[in-house]
């Protein structure tokens, strides 16, 4: 990551550039007394970590145990929760509150007892699952070892996607569990849907306001950044979700064979002159436009005029523009059903809403247009706009390394394109990228950092990569990076898809890496090439002995792809392997895998 170093340069021998930047950011604006206090605080922390720190320093002024501190905990898979947590800290800092920002993965659950104020920012995945870095704390709070909290106040912000059944479940769990063990709620929990920005910002303001009484009485404020967990990345990109870069499509190439049932594209986008940097493991956020055919069909079904003026997020625009660029049409969500029903008075929809389970199943298979087709009605342009939720960009794991492709970014995109209910359906972003966006066409993008999916810092560390289907994407980036680094560590890729002849994504590139010796092993599972279906988890088990040997040699284990089935099956396979080849009980094998995760040697990028 390159950054301007206009004043002080990082004391490279002690801190890396990111840490240095984080510290300079953290201490900017502190007065003389505050700076003195911080130096003592840092020394105290060093002493707590152990080691030979001189006793003189240990006796320096440390914060009093009951001085209020806002401990900001985040559990984040894609970086959104972390982003809001960082905003929270910025606001606390601005208000002069003492605070610290910690990833749940790095937080010792036992310390909870001593906290005065805790703000939790946590996302939910799959079927109500906690993100990887929150798993341990989440379990701890729900278990027997959970402490009694006497003097701890807390607030929870959950992130989720309301099109899933267990919307914001992890946030709800934290809220409930913290309350149950004696924590006092500061403000009511907020459950954020995919379009969370405005709501989250308002909630943070409310929180800061609510903390005023407790914190204003406190002495010197402090801001701490836990060692090694810099607030890196968050502010490092010039282009963001809200201010994306207008990039250009260089190439869109189908990389499945002629007879494949899958349409998977290799997409190349130019970042020329943007200065955007990314690391293997990061994702690219892609803003897209809904298909013109879809928009005009929806307008036709509702007998609405596309030129009608509407207001979206306080801005006046035309209905057709709003439907094309500002609103979500290719997913369905409960709020739409509710609002659409209210506006149209549809009785059939009202009947459907009676049964939650039935509604969920109904929604899961349908896009907005299907609902409108099934339940025709009339409503005004503004009512339609208000019923729809804002369009959100889609995140794709980046399939390239800048060490190889420089000012380009590559993606591996499954073109969602199928017939259902008598009509063609396409994914919003994938349809845009794969069909409507022409070569040299413009696409708005931004980089989404993902520090939870990183190559080992030591190039000698072996890696095992499990990436069936489009899950292969980040591993193409990994291999390009390891190739450029001249990394000596061994590399082992597990890949699977339906057919060898049709669906072997990037086959010739893997052949090249095997030939040049970079890729030590590649193990393939083509599920439909024989009677019985063979998946990557089966191949892992078959190679269990060697997988375990690699793990014992310190290998990092990465999984990318489907969260619903594959990632779980792979994790079970991993536990079985550790059990069988490590001679462990099931519980010990699970603990081994937990340790891998805590040591950041087991990382997932699943969706």
């Amino acid at each position, binding site marked *: 990551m390159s950054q301007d170093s206009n004043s002080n340069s990082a004391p490279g021998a002690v801190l890396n550039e990111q840490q240095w930047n984080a510290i300079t950011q953290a201490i900017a604006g502190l007065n003389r007394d505050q700076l003195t206090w911080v130096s003592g605080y840092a020394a105290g922390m060093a002493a707590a970590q152990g080691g030979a720190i001189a006793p003189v320093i240990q006796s320096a002024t440390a914060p009093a145990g009951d001085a209020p501190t806002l401990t900001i905990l985040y559990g984040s898979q894609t970086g959104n929760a972390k982003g809001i947590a960082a905003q929270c800290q910025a606001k606390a800092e601005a208000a002069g509150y003492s605070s610290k920002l910690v990833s749940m993965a790095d937080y010792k659950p036992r310390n909870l007892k001593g906290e005065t104020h805790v703000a939790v920012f946590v996302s939910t995945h799959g079927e109500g699952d906690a993100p990887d870095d929150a798993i341990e704390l989440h379990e701890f709070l729900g278990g027997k070892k959970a402490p009694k909290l006497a003097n701890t106040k807390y607030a929870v912000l959950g992130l989720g996607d309301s099109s899933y059944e267990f919307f914001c479940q992890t946030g709800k769990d934290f809220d409930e569990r913290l309350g149950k063990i004696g924590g006092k709620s500061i403000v009511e929990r907020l459950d954020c849907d995919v379009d969370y920005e405005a709501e989250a910002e308002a909630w943070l303001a409310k929180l800061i306001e609510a903390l005023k009484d407790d914190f204003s009485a406190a002495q010197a404020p402090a801001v701490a950044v836990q060692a090694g967990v810099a607030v890196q990345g968050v502010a490092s990109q010039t282009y963001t979700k809200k201010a994306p870069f207008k990039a250009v499509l260089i190439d869109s190439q189908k990389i499945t*064979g002629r007879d494949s049932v899958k349409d998977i594209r290799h997409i190349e986008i130019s970042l020329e002159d943007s200065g955007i940097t990314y690391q293997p493991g990061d994702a690219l956020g892609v803003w897209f436009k809904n298909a013109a055919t879809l928009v005009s069909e929806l307008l036709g079904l509702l007998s609405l005029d596309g030129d009608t003026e509407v207001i979206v997020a306080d801005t006046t625009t035309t209905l057709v523009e709003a439907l094309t660029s500002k609103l979500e049409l290719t997913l369905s969500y409960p709020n739409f059903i509710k609002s659409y029903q209210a506006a149209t008075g549809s009785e059939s929809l009202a009947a459907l809403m009676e049964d939650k389970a039935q509604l969920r199943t109904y929604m899961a298979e349908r896009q907005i247009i299907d609902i409108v087709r099934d339940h025709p009605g009339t409503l005004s342009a503004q009512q339609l706009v208000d019923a729809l939720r804002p369009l959100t960009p889609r995140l794709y794991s980046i399939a390239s390394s800048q060490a190889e492709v420089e000012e380009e970014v590559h993606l591996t995109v499954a073109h969602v394109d199928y017939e259902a209910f008598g009509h063609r359906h396409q994914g919003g972003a994938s349809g845009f990228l794969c069909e409507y966006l022409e070569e040299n066409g413009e696409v708005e993008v931004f980089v989404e950092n993902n520090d939870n999916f990183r190559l080992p810092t030591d190039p000698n560390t072996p890696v095992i990569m499990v990436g069936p289907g489009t899950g292969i994407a980040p591993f193409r980036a990994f291999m390009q990076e390891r190739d450029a680094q001249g990394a000596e560590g061994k590399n082992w890729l597990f890949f699977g898809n339906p057919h060898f002849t049709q669906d072997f994504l990037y086959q010739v590139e893997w052949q090249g890496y*095997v030939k040049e010796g970079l890729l030590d092993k*590649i193990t393939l599972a083509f599920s439909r090439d024989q009677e019985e279906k063979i998946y990557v988890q089966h191949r892992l088990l078959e190679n269990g002995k060697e997988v375990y040997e690699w793990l014992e040699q310190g290998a990092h284990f990465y999984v990318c792809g489907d969260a619903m089935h594959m990632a779980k099956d792979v994790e079970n396979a991993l536990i079985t392997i550790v059990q069988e080849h490590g001679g462990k009980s099931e519980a010990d094998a699970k603990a081994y895998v937990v340790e891998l995760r805590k040591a950041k040697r087991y990382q997932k990028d699943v969706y």
Partner: protein
Amino acid sequence: MSNEKSPFIVEGKLADNERLKRESNNLRGTIEADLKDQLTGGFTADNFQLIRFHGMYQQDDRDIRADRAKQKLEPLHNVMLRARLPGGVITPDQWLAIDKFAAEQTLYGSIRLTTRQTFQFHGVLKPKIKSMHQMLNKVGIDSIATAGDVNRNVLCTSNPVESELHLQAFEWAKKISEHLLPKTRAYAEIWLDGEKVETTEKPVEPILGDNYLPRKFKTTVVIPPQNDVDVHANDLNFVAIAENGQLVGFNVLVGGGLAMTHGDKSTYPRKASDFGFIPLTSTLDVAAAVVTTQRDWGNRVNRKNAKTKYTLERVGVENFKAEVEKRAGVTFQESRPYEFTGRGDRFGWVEGIDGKYHLTVFIENGRILDYPNKTLKTGCAEIAKIHKGDFRLTANQNLIIAGVAPEDKAAIESLAREHGLIAPAISNQRLDSMACVALPTCPLAMAEAERYLPDAVTELEGLLAKHGLEQDSVIFRVTGCPNGCGRAMLSEVGLVGKGPGKYNLHLGGDREGTRIPRMYRENISEQEIMAELDVLLGQWAKERNAGEAFGDFVVRAGVVKPVIDSARDFYDA
């Protein structure tokens, strides 16, 4: 094997294929390791060549090669398998087994009858190869040595009429094939999971030699007056000589071959030389002697000059013949008289002298597949289910349903009609036309052949009709490259693929397959070919003598000079 240094051995740096044969551990190579390699659908390094000795060629779908490169996928590698089927005889049970495999396990779903009187599977993916060999083995078929530098499938005239003579000749074809087969157990070990027996005995191959032959070697047994097998396309031919309907011996013809290389005048098609007559008892000895002489004297430095025909030209026919006599312990007698009168198959029903009936059906391009208007493949399978005799594949890529009892005729014929195996009006021209496989599967093809033939014949029919020649025909053959599987170098009108849509046009062969046609136009388009033929067929219609064939006419009329001694005059203008 003779160890003495012969003056007839070509000295020099050996061709790379010699190294790979020598290092192959008697054709094993590392084929087994390649079968386990999941990363590619192909074979690597030497194995790519070695599988040929096991009857397979690695191919790919050339139509989509460029697309797949863009898709970051390797070419759609697969293999073509050519079965060993001496004399082209196959039983109904065998037929049903190969029919099933073709339908269920190959990319193209077809059974391809070939000019080598056998069948080919096209488009077998690597994971299916082993089960394919095991399926064949189960019904008594193998593909040993149907390609590579060995003696390949032995042809035998499909003469269903003289049943007894055919049976005797066919038995010899089988015996010769067995006698000249590689003795290595590589095939059984690799494909049939045969026991691996350590052997230190050398040579493993007493006839072929442990370095195998310098180049491919083709053998036929032919029963005059039919020359369906095209003796002059083969290295070694046994011309059946009968007395009172009983086989008594063979005239031996050596050194035919049609392959050449564009632009290389040291290569040329050549007719076989007549060595003389031998009694039946000497057959296997002579076969072995011809093979071992070619093995020892053939050019192992330059593969383009490695075939028997070039050895004969280099050492002299008499020297070669004397060596064969020495090695076989025989003296060639004066050739017995025989005559070839034609090469075509006898379509429709014929009655054999044993009272059994034989139905020869025309298979365009030899491609047995269900087409929208003719379900040839289903038809053959339905017939196989009730047929009590056998099937015979002809060297013209057609099919004979042989040995049908009079009472079964009607049922067979009804099935054949139902599935379009007997079609109402196939022109003589179509029956006399032939093409090799070429695109999209053959890696050597320079131009279309099989896929061009049907339309080319339709155009030719139009030209013949235009000149009032509807009942006439010319022997018309298209081959996709100068290797010449389509045997265009023994046709009256031959096209040799030169590039996409471009061919060399050869004229002046004869109907019996005893004269090589000369190149008349080089590298011309399909339109130009038909324009040339339009003029020449018009001339033939007006100026020919009674019954004069087109190939004879163009020679007499001076359109082309006849090729008489191809080693010297093939490239004359």
